[in-house]
């Protein structure tokens, strides 16, 4: 079972160096995107309502009023 999986991984990804390098680079980018997205989501859940992006809707429209006075 594990042997079949390992050999299929070897055959598809590791056997040819170009494919191997490409898969490493693609994997790195994919992991970074997935990791950043998920940790940012957790962070925003912890800090809901505290960050600027949560409160800025109140002030984006008011900018013109404050210019007048």
């Amino acid at each position: 079972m594990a042997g079949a999986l390992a050999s299929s991984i070897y055959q598809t990804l590791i056997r040819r160096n170009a494919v191997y390098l490409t898969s490493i680079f693609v994997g790195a980018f994919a992991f970074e995107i997935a990791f950043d997205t998920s940790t940012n989501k957790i962070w925003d859940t912890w800090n809901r309502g505290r960050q600027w992006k949560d409160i800025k809707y109140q002030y984006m429209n008011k900018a013109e009023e404050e210019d007048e006075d």
Partner: protein
Amino acid sequence: MLARTVLRSVPFRGAARQSLNKTSSRASSSSAGSESTSSPIHLTVTASIATAVALGSATYLYGQEAFAMTPAEEGLHATQYPWEHAKWNKTFDHAALRRGFQVYREVCASCHSLTRVPWRSFVGVTHTVDEMKAFAEENEYDTEPNDQGEIEKRPGKLSDYIPPPYPNEEAARFANGGALPPDLSLIVKGRHGGCNYIFSLLTGYPDEPPAGAAVQEGMNFNPFFPGTAIAMARVLFDGVVEYEDGTPATTSQMAKDVVEFLNWAAEPEMDDRKKMGFKALTLLTGLFALSVWVKRYKWSPIKTRKVVYSPPVPRR
């Protein structure tokens, strides 16, 4: 010194005797450690007393804190408050930062400077670009010398720093009865107790000084200020500012907001720092688990192997 050498000589002799015993019995048994527990009780007691005396004298000599000041000069220790933004996974409450900046502008800024904070640093943190430009333009700054070498005035830009209320230290002292209002840019980092101290100071003014406390002319009593006599009078009263988001402007609310704002001014990188720390901890935990697995994987044949010694059979 004499006592120490006497104490030391006793265990040495015991240890020597033990090692003698061990060498004599090594030939008969290969299992070590069975006889090492048999140290006499008087050796254990002597060694324990010697250790206790050594630790005690070291603590007496080096472990004590020296207090040169009286409690009044030290100031009352600030109360510990459960600051939400001080938790390891919480950012600043940016609505509170915005209110705190309003308190600074309307109350603190008449005496205290905030010279290390530029107008641009508020953009995207507490205010929009247009709001901050409007604030900056209310102030005048010197231009570069023009063709005739004259320095003119221009309205402020986002890249300018918040102007101080006084042109120099002497003017600040002259206007405040000889006392210099400190710059507030790094005040949270620069005072023992940080947020707790500043909050306690701002809200800790009693209505009148307690009986027996001597307060000089032009000074105010505050138990949290080292020396208890502070030149700054109480400035935060209920309703001194009017918050735009409808928060009731009580003394403690304003003090809390302005303290959080000053903490942001001292540590504007805190939100990003905590976020990156959280990410780094998550990632390093995974890598640590991986390294533990690799270690066990590599060591498993070494740990589970059996080394057998088969002595050569003597020829008859």
